[in-house]
């Protein structure tokens, strides 16, 4: 059993880290990693918004007028040479974006009409047009971007960060996952697994409907008082045994039961969006009680506010192949944008006015890009784009990211990168860097070798740092 003074020491340390001038990440991590603190970490928490299925960023941020010119003409031959596509067959035709684009923000970046709210915060985000991956199927590409490897079994970025930096809240998990859109991401729970790290570090899924955490609610008929009585007897009997056999593991168990008890209160409290003023709910377009992406953005803010290290949002339904009305680019991409655009912008504005944006890194993106060609699978008359690993756009905001910049470029067809390519490992290295961690040093030994999030690659993208 920890003595009260030990517990206090722990708390004081936490308190210090939480409130030290440099912020936890920068000071503690850099110092304790034995590195000269090249630069203080800016980010303390991450909110990572993953659009599962991968949005067509050619129709949102990477404006290619040339595609309009070539609309429905056979694509240039060299786009097909040595290429393997998930679904495209024969000689596909170019698909110009059916949506209107305009310039926004001081730097005049292009945004389509589908994302007016994001466009309105253009000056607060860094747009990266030159992301690329080497996977063109959903599950492996999602695994690559979240775990650094296209196969199952590696820890997710949130698990790595939790392992490296720990948690700052005694009553909440340090790595929380929220899924919306009706499905889990294609790669399943592995994208928030702890892989070979101890399970302590795995993402804890807060669910949209029903209990926010599995088995959180007391059984029927049991109230707080009844639970307290049970835990009191449990602690008493456990302490009797602890006295007899002396195993400190029993102390941990007693403590974990108490944490579970606190979580039963703190998690519903954190998840209770009813506590937000009407104005905030409207900003996000949140609707307490419903399962929605907007609710999750608001919840994410409430969680980082409470010291949660990593909040991972997955929103499913972005896979617009155009095989039918359900994945038609023309109707479904606008629908998904309507569900998400306002909340993403609201998150940035809300974090900013609370002074949290500086220490919270917000990341937005899918697992790969989409082809500039129309898929026309089996002669489909609906519009859609196939999977495309060579380039895609993501944006980042807050947490030490340079605001209002554009990084990287693609060619006039949006098919290949022409400037400043950023591999997903580079993105990971950069995220870790923003949290004050050298990605080559955050390692774990497993099956005879050191593993890390960025595998054997990754370069910090300095152009994105404020």
């Amino acid at each position, binding site marked *: 059993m920890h003595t009260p003074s030990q517990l206090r020491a722990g708390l004081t340390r936490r308190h210090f880290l939480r409130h030290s001038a440099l912020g936890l990440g920068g000071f*503690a991590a850099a110092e304790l990693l034995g590195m000269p603190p090249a630069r203080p970490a800016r980010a303390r928490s991450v909110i990572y918004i993953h659009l599962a299925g991968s949005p067509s960023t050619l129709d949102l941020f990477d404006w290619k007028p040339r595609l309009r010119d070539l609309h429905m003409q056979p694509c240039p031959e060299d786009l097909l040479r040595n290429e393997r596509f998930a679904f495209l067959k024969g000689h596909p035709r170019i698909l110009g974006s059916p949506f209107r684009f305009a310039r926004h923000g001081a730097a005049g970046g292009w945004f389509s009409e589908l994302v007016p709210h994001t466009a309105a915060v253009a000056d607060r985000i860094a747009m990266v047009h030159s992301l690329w991956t080497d996977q063109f199927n959903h599950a492996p590409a999602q695994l690559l971007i979240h775990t650094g490897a296209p196969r199952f079994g590696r820890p997710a970025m949130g698990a790595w960060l939790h392992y490296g930096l720990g948690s700052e809240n005694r009553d909440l998990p340090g790595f929380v996952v929220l899924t919306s859109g009706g499905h889990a991401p294609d790669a399943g729970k592995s994208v928030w697994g702890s892989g070979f790290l101890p*399970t302590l570090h795995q993402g804890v899924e807060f669910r949209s409907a029903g209990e926010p955490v599995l088995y959180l609610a007391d059984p029927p008929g*049991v109230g707080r008082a009844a639970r307290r009585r049970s835990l009191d007897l449990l602690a008493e009997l456990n302490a009797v045994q602890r006295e007899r056999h002396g195993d400190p593991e029993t*102390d941990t*168990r007693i403590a974990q039961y108490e944490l579970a008890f606190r979580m039963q209160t703190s998690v519903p409290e954190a998840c209770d969006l009813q506590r937000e003023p009407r104005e905030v709910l409207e900003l996000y377009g949140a609707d307490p009680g419903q399962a929605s992406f907007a609710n999750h953005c608001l919840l994410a803010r409430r969680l980082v506010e409470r010291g949660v290290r990593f909040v991972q949002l997955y929103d499913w339904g972005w896979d617009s192949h155009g095989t039918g009305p359900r994945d038609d680019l023309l109707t479904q991409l606008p629908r998904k944008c309507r569900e998400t655009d306002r909340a993403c912008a609201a998150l940035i504005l809300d974090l900013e006015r609370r002074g949290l944006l500086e220490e919270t890194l917000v990341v937005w993106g899918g697992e790969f890009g989409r082809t500039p060609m129309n898929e026309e699978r089996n002669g489909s008359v609906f519009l859609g784009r196939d999977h495309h690993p060579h380039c895609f756009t993501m944006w980042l905001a807050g947490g030490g990211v340079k605001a209002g910049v554009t990084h990287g470029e693609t060619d006039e067809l949006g098919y290949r990168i022409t400037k400043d390519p950023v591999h997903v490992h580079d993105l990971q290295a950069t995220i870790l860097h923003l949290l004050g961690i050298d990605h080559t040093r955050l*390692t774990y030994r497993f099956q005879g070798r050191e593993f890390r999030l960025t595998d054997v690659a990754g370069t910090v993208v300095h152009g994105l740092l404020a």
Partner: protein
Amino acid sequence: MQQDGGPARLRARNRLHNRAVHAPRLLALATLAAAAPCPAQGEATAIPAAAARPHEYARDVRPILARACFECHGATRQKKGLRLDRRSAALRGGRDGPVIVPGDPARSRLLRHVEGAGGVKRMPPPDAKVGPLTADEIATLRSWIAQGAPWTDDAGDAGDADARHWAYRPIPRVAAPVPGVPNWPRNPLDHFILARLHAEGLAPSPEADRLAWLRRVTLDLTGLPPTPEEATAFAADPGPQAYEAVVDRLLASPHYGERWARIWLDLARYADSSGYERDQPRVMWRWRDWVIDAFNRDLPYDRFTIEQIAGDLLPDADDRTRIATGFHRNTMTNDEGGTDDEEFRVAAVIDRVNTTMQAWMGTTLGCAQCHDHKYDPFSQREYYQLFAFFNNTADADRADEAPRMPAPTPEEVQHRARLAAVEARLARVLDESARDLGVASDAALLQPLRDAMAGMRQRRESSPWTSALVLEELPAERRRTTRILEKGSFLSPGEPVRPDTPAALHPFPEGAPRDRLGLALWLASPANPLAPRVAVNRVWEALFGRGLVETAEDFGVQGEPPTHPGLLDWLASEFVDGGFRLKPLLRTIVLSATYRQSSALRPGLREHDPDNRLLARGPRVRLDAEFVRDNALAASGLLARKVGGPSVMPPQPDGVWQVVYSGDQWTTSRGEDRHRRGLYTFWRRSAPYPSMVAFDAPSREYCVVRRVRTNTPLQALVTLNDPVYVEAAQALARRLLHEAHGDRERIARGFWLCLQRPPHPDETAAALAALARERAAWAADEAAARAFAGLGCDVQPAGQEPGEVAAFTALAGVLLNLDEFLTKG
């Protein structure tokens, strides 16, 4: 999750610490400092070095150099021309001259470099991935050099070649040390333990009381607790053979196979779905039942090996040995659109190579897929030579999972036979009717009969007929040529290779075929020293919570050396000499004085040996996920003891199975299948059963040698709130009310059912006081009492008020959550 700095966490971190992985260690300290109150403990796990003894290169020195130096001064790179993994090269030194001068530590620059003393550059450099050497390690190098830097193995062949790593050497016949306390040891195993304890100045713990040993051994051999009746009978049996009789009874129990299969299923990455994105259900339980049965009939480990690797190629192959090959059909298949079947077929073969070497040889070979192994003596070419053994099976990542063989259950066979009999009777009637009606008969008259017969045939043909996924070798004309895959990519085939085993390991059996059967014979060969060491270590880990080689997954130079090398070899040779049978080995261990010790942590031991590596006390470890469930069901009387059969779907929360592109539903099982043992729970890789995941069960996507044990609040939420456990508490409460009278007796009954011991007076007092509080509280709210006690439409236990049942449900719930209940102690 917030870390309260519990010992589990400290221990997990210490493991890293001890292995001196620089960055995580520091990170670990960062978190430790942030969240755990006693960082000093992180330093306390090292076991004091034994008194100055002759150093062995392979045991003492090579692991240090391998960790800290081989990355840059090893087989793949020789910075400054210096190579330290071979004797001649190491003594020659690098471009700047010798670094090791045998017998003269002062002139050995190696020491100055690792100390960073005398103005020389510290090695490994500060930007290296590995941290500096510890003072102990430097002291070891110093005294080894002082001893003349002997570079030999046990057998004394001081060749220029590497002294072979200890794990690859033949298993010597080890004589047990002479006992220091003549009355303590019960068999030779104990002599090894005692000798080490004496060397450390420790004494063993007193024997655990009979009931504690009974609970421990019953959980260890069957994964289930003893019944109160078994416990009282054993406590009352003073006979000299009482312990032996218990062990023999447990080894003969059908639940023995279930318990030991649990470990093998993790190694085999057994699951009921195919993995990857679609993760379709697949029928693998016939293989799972083969494993349970193999353990129950104590199939010798060599045969166990051969049947699983190549049961289809045996001269005496039969359905059973073919089902055994399902071991390697547990690899994942990917039938997502647009995927290249060859890519995932190759991924499956790679997984077979890695899993075989992990499960049997304790060797982590994965890195040789892309390049020569940096630490262990395996080249990339050798990797693909092993790959070649597995590269000619007929399965090819196909959506239909071919090849499969029909493997109907007896019930299915019976059912079809019954349908066939009806069909035959109909045929007879049809015949007779046709005859009676004569040639002029009107076909229309007989049509209903013909329809009935056709219907019956269709019913027969479509009746359930389980099949099993099996390995099957391609015919000669369709054999694939294996090539080295550059950087491990299936798109970059290089030079062709032929099937062979790594040169550093024991030789390929003479005359054996160069196919999977040959590989199986090589693994099972009596000349293989590694497989028995790995196998007995696994058994040791299951019983004591930690292997003699802690890194059960890595017996290579980067792994931990054994804490008791002689004991490991003694057990391995007993195992081999005993015909590779597991049951006699277990019998020896669980009857030993070592295993019988009390697990209480006496003063001093916590400081000296917190992880119990020296075994100065008995084991105390939390139960595995499956057994946490089994025990709650067993104590409450709900457990269905049926062995084997299709996987079942006990209650789980809605929405866990939320997998893309799949309409598969979790259909909660009914009747006894709600309460089957944990290992029969349907295992979907993308969404494994959540309450087991909370207790560290893996997803089964890949071979897992060792489950990391955590202690988290999510576990508390499971055993307090999961309806499975609430139901168990309700059932246990009813048992107490039915099976005993009066509070004291009922409390005692609860202790016997859950812990197999009587309560101590202080425990009884606490429980009595709690019952009084519970009664008062529940009496005030009958509706809540009914809900909690599960008294909806249920018949009320005779003469019991709802408040009374609720009070006992609360007590039962506490018993099912006791640390002692969740722990084998």
